[in-house]
C-alpha cells in the first residue's frame, strides 16, 4: 500500500514539449512538496503546498507550475521543456499541521525525466 506515489516513473521527451508528473499521497497529510535531484544527486526543494495553498516557491522558472486539486494530490506541469530540466523529481508529503517544524517528510519513488 504505497504511501506517496508518482507517475510516471520514467519520462523521456523532446525539448519544447509540455509534460506533467502526478503525485498522490494516502497518508492524510496536509502538506506536499516537489524536489528536484540533479545529476550530482543534489536535492533541492521547488514547491510546497499546504491544504492546496502554495507555501514555498523557490526560484523556479515559471515554466514549472504545480497544481493541487485536493490535499492528497500535487501535480507538476512543465512547459517548454529544456535540456537542463533533465533530473529526478521527487514528491513528498508531511503532516505540518500535526508536527509543525518537527514533521517528517515522506518521499515518493521519484520520476526520472530525460529531455532530448
Amino acid at each position, binding site marked *: 500500500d504505497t504511501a506517496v506515489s508518482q507517475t510516471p516513473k520514467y519520462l523521456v521527451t523532446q525539448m519544447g514539449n509540455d509534460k506533467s508528473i502526478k503525485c498522490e499521497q494516502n497518508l492524510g497529510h496536509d502538506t506536499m512538496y516537489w524536489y528536484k535531484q540533479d545529476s550530482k*544527486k*543534489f*536535492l533541492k*526543494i521547488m514547491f510546497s503546498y499546504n491544504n492546496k495553498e502554495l507555501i514555498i516557491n523557490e526560484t523556479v522558472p515559471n515554466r514549472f507550475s504545480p497544481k493541487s486539486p485536493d490535499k492528497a494530490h500535487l501535480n507538476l506541469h512543465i512547459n517548454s521543456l529544456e535540456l537542463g530540466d533533465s533530473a529526478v523529481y521527487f514528491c513528498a508529503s508531511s503532516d505540518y499541521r500535526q508536527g509543525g*517544524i*518537527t514533521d*517528517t517528510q515522506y*518521499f515518493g*519513488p*521519484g520520476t526520472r525525466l530525460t529531455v532530448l
Partner: protein
Amino acid sequence: AQSVAQPEDQVNVAEGNPLTVKCTYSVSGNPYLFWYVQYPNRGLQFLLKYITGDNLVKGSYGFEAEFNKSQTSFHLKKPSALVSDSALYFCAVRDEEEADKLIFGTGTRLQVFP
C-alpha cells in the same frame, strides 16, 4: 540562512565494522535535524530525526545519530555495517526562522565491502 554540510562524498567500510557518516549544520535558531537514505533508483527513506531531548537518537535499521550542539554536528552511526547498508545518505536541517524549508546536504555515498 540555514545550511548543512556533508564533508565526505564517499565513505568505505568493511562489513561488520562500525560506520560514521558526518554532517555539520548552520542555523539561526534551534536546529531540527534529519537523516534520510536513498537506495539505487529509489526514493528517500526517513531514518531518524533530532528534535529535542537526548543527544543520541535511534532510528531505523540499527542506525543512530549523535547531536552535538557545540560542534554543530549530527553524525550518523551504526555499530556494525552490513553490505545492504550501501546507499546514498542525506542529512537535512530545518530551523525556526525558515520552518517551511528542509535543506539537504549534498549526500554521502556509503560503500560497505564484504
